[in-house]
């Protein structure tokens, strides 16, 4: 099946794929700084360079860390917790 072959092809070149992704991310931030009209932004912080990139990254890390802390504070229990 061709779809499996495509995924296999990409997996065999994982390093290149990852490098391309980093390049794409960098281009995205650069394009945002150079070309995007920020006239309609609602707040001042949105005018910072790469604000939404930072928001995405920090938000993601914060969500993971806070949720895991919350889970390990007693919310996560063995799977047979409710069994009698």
């Amino acid at each position, binding site marked *: 099946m061709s779809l499996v072959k495509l995924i296999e092809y990409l997996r065999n070149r994982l390093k290149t794929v990852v490098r391309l992704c980093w390049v794409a991310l960098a281009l995205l931030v650069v394009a945002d700084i150079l070309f995007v009209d920020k006239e309609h*932004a609602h707040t001042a912080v*949105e005018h910072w360079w790469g604000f939404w990139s930072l928001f995405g990254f920090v938000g993601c890390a914060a*969500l*993971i860390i806070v949720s*895991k802390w919350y*889970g390990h504070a007693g919310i996560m229990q063995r*799977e047979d917790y409710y069994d009698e």
Partner: protein
Amino acid sequence: MNSFWLHPALILILGALVLPFLPGRVKRPFLLLVPVLVFARVLTLTHGSFGHVSFLGWDLVFGRVDRLSQVFGYIMSLMCILGNLYGLHVKDDRQHVAAWFYVAGSIGAIYAGDYLTLFLFWELMAFSSVFLIWARGREESLGAGFRYLLVHVAGGLSLLAGMVWHCNTVGSWEFSLTDVQHATPATYLIMIGFILNAAVPPLHAWLPDAYGEATFNGSVFMCAFTTKTAVYALCRGFAGMEILVPLGVIMALYGVVYAVLENDCRRLLAYHIISQVGYMVAGVGLGTQMAVNGACAHAFAHILYKGLLFMGCGAVLHMTGESKFTELGGLWRKMPWTFVFTLIGGLSISAFPLFSGFVSKSMIVAAGFEEHKLWVGFLLMLASVGTFLHTGLKVPYFIWFGKNQPKREVWERAAEPPWNMNAAMALASVLCIFIGCYTPYLYKMLPYPEVAAEYHPYTAYHVSETLQILLFTAVGFFLLLKKLVPEPVISLDCDWFYRMGGRAFLTFARKPVQAVDTFVGELYRLGGLIPLMLTARLAGLFDNYIIDGAVDGFARSVRRLGQRLRGVQRGQVQENLVFAFGVAAALIVAFLILANW
């Protein structure tokens, strides 16, 4: 009305009553034909008020057709087609019948013009969908079904109490926008009934409990109808209710936090329903035309992409028998197309440009910013970070890739699902992309089309903002991958209170109450039973010799009747429910037919 007005829900109910008696060959086409007819009927509805019936001096309205009810009616009946296509190969008739009654309940509630009719269909939804949980047949499903029923009956009672109170003050059963500025206790009771179905914390725990336990295609139906009917009811009755804004934002984040901890892929998706419905609830609370448009648009898009996601994970469950991340991994070799479809669902829910969520979710966020509620905008943005983190990344990664190697038998069972499941997923995927690419299709259906026409999601700023948020979330995901590896645990949620509370009640019933009962029983035995037995023995002698011969024939027939009756009353709640349910269904059909003449 003098002419017959065919209610779309009636087609489904009649179909459900006929289905079990059809021969095998006809069943499959019939399973597709009925939902298609319902969809066609919804398309041909004209605006207005139909199906009036006088009941005990009240005017009941079965068919209120306007822009708001039409957008929901459209997507519900469309989803019914997809759901039936997906479960076409399921041999168990009970599931199809239950699903049709369930959809009929939802569609009936949407077109209901008064509280009584709304309540009738509202309860039909709860009592029919529970069979989609029980049909799974596991020991856990039985408990989950009862908990589901318990919670929904409680919510229904709150709704009923509020309705009666409201009708008493206002003097009419009409279901319309309540006076949200001067909310009365009755309004709050009705709202509690609605937000329980919308799964607003702390009234939400039924949702992951039930949707994680239902059958693989039962969940596809359930994820679409209950919560979105509640969103419709909130749009209709509570647009502009301030308290819904913070509740919606809390919901959006609450679901995301629990999704981090979740090990079962369908429960994870269930927590993301809570999160996504949070956007809609917040939109209803904002109450501006743009926000209500956003809530409706998001409900529309949500039904499709969430259905698609549940189809993808349901296919994995159906083929491998597993839904836990810790038991799955590396399935890309075996189920590549299921992966692609699920990924499309994931990109849609995450609001990637060109996918459906992008054109609907942003409307609510923009409405928040426009109302100068900055915290609403930013917190909803944070929730969309979490959405992509889980549904766009965690689900596909840990099922189809990841380092985990599933057990041998799981691996051997894994394969692409039957054609009809693939077809349903492909159709849903196409719709998700179509909505994302061609905005007028959805925007023209919204309650305020002129406001929607002025909204343009594809501005350079919005696209750049979204791409940055989502792609840098992906960076965070891969950098913190080790922390995200699923653990074989369950997370305690608000259902703890009634699960443990129920257990405490049982213990109480067993120990002190049982002791009192035994004591009273003993008194009864000494004081009453022993003398009674003596008399009985004497009477028995008399009976044996004299009356027996005459009565024997009569006794035999009584025993036969008794055996028949015992089936009905041997305490099997499910059997009683089916029985009661059948009677209720017959009544509804009679009602609908009478109502529409």
